[in-house]
Every structure is written in C-alpha cells, then in structure tokens.
C-alpha cells in the first residue's frame, strides 16, 4: 500500500502543473478538478501510469449548480485502483449552454451507458460518444429533468382532481389556498379541538 492520496496528488501536479486544482479530501476520498478539455488527458494518465493504475470506472454522473455561471454542470468520475484499493473522484465543470465534454468510452466500455444516462438527465453532450441518445426517459422528451430549473410537482397544487391520492374528492381536501400551502377542510375542523 504505497499509494496515498498525497502521492497521487504529487504525481498529478508533476504531470499537469496548475491545470489540476481544487484538491480536497472529503471523507478521505481525494477529489480534484481539471479543465473540461483536459478530461481525457487526465483519465488516460490515471489509467496508463504504471504507478497509479486507475483502471476501474466505478461511477460517472453529473451535478447541476445553477448559481455558478460558466460552470453550471459538473461531470463527476469515480475511479478505483483495484490493486492498491484506493478511490479518487475527478470533476470537470462545463457551461450549461455549451455542455461539450469528451467521451470516455474509448477508455472504459462502462462509460457508454453512464454517459447516456448523464446526457439524458443533464444534457451533457459527450463528444465522440458512439450512440448518445436518451436511455431511461422517452426519446421525445425535450428537456433535461434533473437540472435544478425543473422542480418536482408543487405539493400544494389544487388543480388535480385525484381522489385516489388524497387530492380533491368528497371530504374537500385541498380547497383553500394560503401563502403557506393548502389548508384542508379536515385540518380546519381540528383546530382548537382537544387532543386526546
């Protein structure tokens, strides 16, 4: 077990100088980022280097940060060196208006569907991907649902007449709307009554 977070960090800095940055170790896992056009160079180096040998892609996903202009989307790679049993996390940030990131499918066959999933939910355009289309959602969908601008259904909405799920119906659920949501008839009746 010669490989430590500190050593990996040194090797990366030796190779890429200031282009790799933001080194952190949340809960013990070395995390860093690189410019998005460097992602394949970094992944290749991590894969090929005789010492580092990060040859197992555990996970690939994205995160949306709408408050960071120009760096809204983060593509996150989790890599694993199975021989020394050490994991790292590598991020590239991209603009959500032009979310082009090079594909890692040439290096990891596993990346194929994971990139399709990331495209499906975040719209990251993986340049060079052999078959970049939606995987879990329907092909006709015209937005990327996990981005933060698409909220979940408003829980206080009243326009649905759906007795089966407790909205609307005979006992008048969801009839009066206030600033804080909906007061149901049932709750109004309870106010002031003694709790047994």
């Amino acid at each position, binding site marked *: 077990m010669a490989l430590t977070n500190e050593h990996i960090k040194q090797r990366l800095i030796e190779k890429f100088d200031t282009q790799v940055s933001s080194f952190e170790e*949340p809960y013990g896992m070395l995390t860093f980022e690189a410019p998005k056009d460097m992602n394949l160079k970094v992944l290749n180096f991590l894969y090929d280097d005789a010492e580092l040998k990060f040859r197992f892609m555990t996970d690939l996903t994205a995160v949306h940060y709408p408050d960071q202009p120009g760096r809204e989307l983060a593509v996150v790679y989790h890599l694993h060196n199975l021989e020394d*049993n050490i994991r790292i996390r590598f991020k590239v940030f991209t603009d959500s208006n032009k979310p082009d990131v090079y594909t890692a499918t040439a290096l990891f066959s*596993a990346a194929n*569907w994971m990139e399709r999933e990331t495209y499906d939910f975040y719209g990251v355009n993986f340049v060079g991907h052999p078959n970049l289309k939606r995987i879990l*959602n*329907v092909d006709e969908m015209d937005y990327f*649902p*996990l981005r933060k601008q698409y909220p979940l259904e408003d829980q206080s909405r009243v326009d649905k007449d759906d007795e089966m799920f407790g909205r609307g119906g005979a006992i008048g659920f969801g009839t009066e709307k206030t600033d804080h949501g909906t007061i149901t008839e049932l709750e109004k009746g309870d106010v002031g009554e003694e709790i047994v």
Partner: protein
Amino acid sequence: MSEQHIKLPEGSIEKTTTTLNLGPTHPATHGVMQNILELDGERIVSAEQTIGYIHRAFEKIAERRNLYQITPLTDRLNYCSSPINNMGWHLTCEKLLGVKTPKRVDYLRVIIMELARISDHLICNSIVGVDSGAYTGFLYVMQYRELIYEIYEEICGSRLTTNIGRIGGFERNFNDIAFTKIQKFLDEYPRVLKEFENLFTRNRIFMERTIGAGAISAERALNYGFTGPNLRAAGVDYDVRIHSPYSSYEDFQFEIPVGTTGDCYDRFLVRNQEMWQSLSIVEQAFRKVQEFKGAEAEVYHADVPEYYLPEKKDVYTKMEALIWHFKIIMGEIDMPAGEVYNSVEGANGELGFYLISDGGRAPYRLHFRRPCFIYYQAYEELTKGAMLSDAIIVMSSLNLIAGEMDA
C-alpha cells in the same frame, strides 16, 4: 413525436435476418426490459437493449426528501434484496453524519444483509434453472426464501420492500421469534442448498446449456465495470466487504469464491459458493450476537437523537422524545454539508451511493451506482454469435433486476 419507437432497418422486407423482440413483457426477461435481437437463423447477429420502462426518477424525488424518507426509495432498487439497499443507505447517511454504530447493531445488520444475499442468489440461481428447463429447484427453494421473508417480517413488519432499520440502527430489537427463525434457517438450509446443488451442479443438461454461454474475460469484465458475482465469476476477487469493510465485516471469516471463465456456469457456481459463505457469516454473526450480556444485549441503535426516530411509547410519555420526534418529522434538522461516496456489496455487485449535501434538509444531489445498469450494457458482447436460447440464459444468469436498472 416520431412515428414509431422501433425502427426497422432499411429494406427490412428483403433482408435475410430476422428481427425479434425479446421483451419488454416476455416471460423470459424476468423484468421489464426489451432486447431487439437480430437473428440469422438461430444465431444472434446483434442485440440492442431498451430500458427505462419502470424509471421512477428516484434521484429527483430524493432531492426533496429527508434522509429517512429516502430509505423506502432504495427498497425499490434491487427488490430481491431490499435490506442490503436499506443498510447501504443508512451506512451512507451515517458516514455523512459521522455516526458510529455499536457492535451489536453491526452484527445484526450483517445477519440481515447476508440473509438478503442468500435470498437474492437463491432466486437468481433457481431462475437460471427454470430457463434451462428445470423447474423443480425453483419451487423447492421458494419455501426457504419464504422463511427469510418471515424473518424480515418479524424484524420490520414487511417482506418485500422492507424499509428495514433506521439511521443508527434498528427501529426495535430483534424478538425471540426472529432469533428462533434464524436458528431454524441455519439448521435447515445447508441440507436444502446441498440438495439444490445436487440437482444442478453436475446435471448434464444444465452443464451443456450453461458452460461457455455468455463468457467474458476478466479484462473485459473490468472494463465494463462488472462487480459482484459476475466479476468474480470472471476471476477477479473484488468484493466490497473485503476491500472496504463496512458494518464490521472485518470481524468475520469468509472466503471470496472466484470462477475462471466468466460464463453462466461459473456465475452459477460462484453464487452457490457465496451462499455457503453467507451462511457461515450468518452463523458467526448469530453466535457473536448471543455473546452480548446484560445491558449490551439490549442495544439495537446508536445514540443519535437528531436522526433516530424515538420509540412511539416514549413520544407519548416523554417530553424530550416528543420534541425530537417533532423535529425529525417536520424536517427541522439540517444535515452537515459534505460530499460522500459509500458503497456496499449488493447481491449483484457494488451498490454505491453518491450523496452531496449543501447543508439543507434534503440531499442536494443523490446518485445511485446501480450494478445492473452498468453491466447490462455488456449483453450484446456476451451474446453475439450465440444461439437464441443462450441469450435467455445469459440474461437470467446476469441477475438483471429492472427496478435497479431503471432507478
């Protein structure tokens, strides 16, 4: 809207190959997924998978839920072994919150997780049997899966989607019936498993159907991100329980069975061997649990009032418990900000949880690393050039669970 979802190749009327839709509701797919096979006679030329039929947007829903409300979502990933998913989620939360669980809780969790692994492998292996024409094994082992479900029922009240345990431990201590049933399982199951093996392992029909079908090399398996029994069948001894032990797995003695060729037969053998190992782990854990004496034998959760729902009778009688109950239910407690990846050895591979918290009440981002989803993409490579009947058996021996694939 495009006119049709399934696009036939150009000039498909004149073509010499046959297009066959396997799924999404074909009985042999054992789940809602579709394979569009291109067949030349009975040989598979290409296979294209369509998934997502039961996608439920768990990752999005989780962004509005408190930690404890996400546990029922994890039930519905690999529903053949929900307790492992539940525990994996609790362990992830505990890692984020810095909760240390008592040893007894760890051992109780190990018992449940290994029972879940047995029930999952049992279904997978007996389904491989069904798909190769041997129904007997499947019916025979079903009563022992039933016994495992009864054990869950004693502990948490439900059977399939268990929602078992809480952050920090269990909602209640194991009762005597649960222990009796675990003991019964330990006594009876070895004989059953032996008999199950007798039915299949050296069965000539079974061997001829599975040996060489859907083989994959260790190198390709790693490149495809295989984990769990499928990777071990290809000869790589990677197991999360050993490589990054959680829930005190380091206290147990067990082996990691590996195969050599990565074909259906090896996958079957690896799963069978794992059941023996799991059985031995349950036995060890059971003994360790019995060793606790006095007050220690009553411990079933860690002391984390901010996240562990107090017992109902305390809520009605004690002010403090009432306050914590209120705060937890109303979502008054902000979790620490942080970024954590935690994984457990699920029944069909490394089940990972990537959780980002920005300090709010619900996760900022939660991503599930679902082993099924990742290794199903190798299906075309596994079946190319094989016969149609192999395609079916490869599918069942990979242990594809639609719920996990689609999240």
